């Protein structure tokens, strides 16, 4: 799970809207990029900055994207990403992006959120589903090969 609030620089030049493509980028960074880099750090026993001296983690492709609503400047995107597969520094994720009604206390809500709730995509009534992404694929690639 990850939370990101759309800032001015994210919506500049597109009418204050955090577009579907921006949501895909945020979802990819939060899932296959961050998750992949984390696993590589653990496997190699090195820090994030040490890992990035030799590797870059990139978003490559995706299966499907269904955008049902939008996120505006100042709205908070709540990303629920599930890892579908991981092998040889290639990771695949699927999941949903939500936005919560104004004033909803995310910190309080997630204090008691369980793994079971996450696995079953259980979210509060205050959430609105914004988009659904499937088969988003990213990989860790050596810097000298990019």
């Amino acid at each position, binding site marked *: 799970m990850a939370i990101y609030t759309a800032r001015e620089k994210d919506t500049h030049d597109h009418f204050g809207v955090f577009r579907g493509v921006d949501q895909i980028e945020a979802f990819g960074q939060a899932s296959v990029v961050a998750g992949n880099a984390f696993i590589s750090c653990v496997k190699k026993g090195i820090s994030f900055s040490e890992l990035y001296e030799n590797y870059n983690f990139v978003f490559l492709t995706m299966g499907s994207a269904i955008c049902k609503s939008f996120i505006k400047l100042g709205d908070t995107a709540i990303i629920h990403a599930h890892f579908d597969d991981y*092998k040889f520094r290639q990771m695949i994720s699927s999941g949903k992006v939500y936005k919560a009604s104004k004033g909803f206390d995310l910190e309080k809500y997630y204090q008691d959120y369980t793994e079971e709730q996450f696995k079953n995509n259980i979210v509060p009534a205050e959430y609105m589903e914004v988009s659904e992404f499937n088969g988003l694929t990213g990989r860790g690639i050596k810097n000298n090969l990019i």
Partner: protein
Amino acid sequence: MTREEILKGLIEILENTPQVDSSKLKNVTEKTDFITDLEVPSTELINVIAKAESKFDVEFDDDDIDDLGSSVSGTIDLIEAAFKNQ
């Protein structure tokens, strides 16, 4: 296991890979490239290598795959090396 047997096994994996045009598999040799000659998507190539692990009962490290490239000969080298390390 000979390199020829490994090649045959790799072709069997490719025959069961939906993204690969089976007509391209008639003339696969060690000089073939998975991506440029067979048009295997680079993301699918990882799955082909993973299936090779299972088929040949060997294990590869992430680091081995980093520098593997996309040649059939390189993959056969990798499998041969894994046999030797068993």
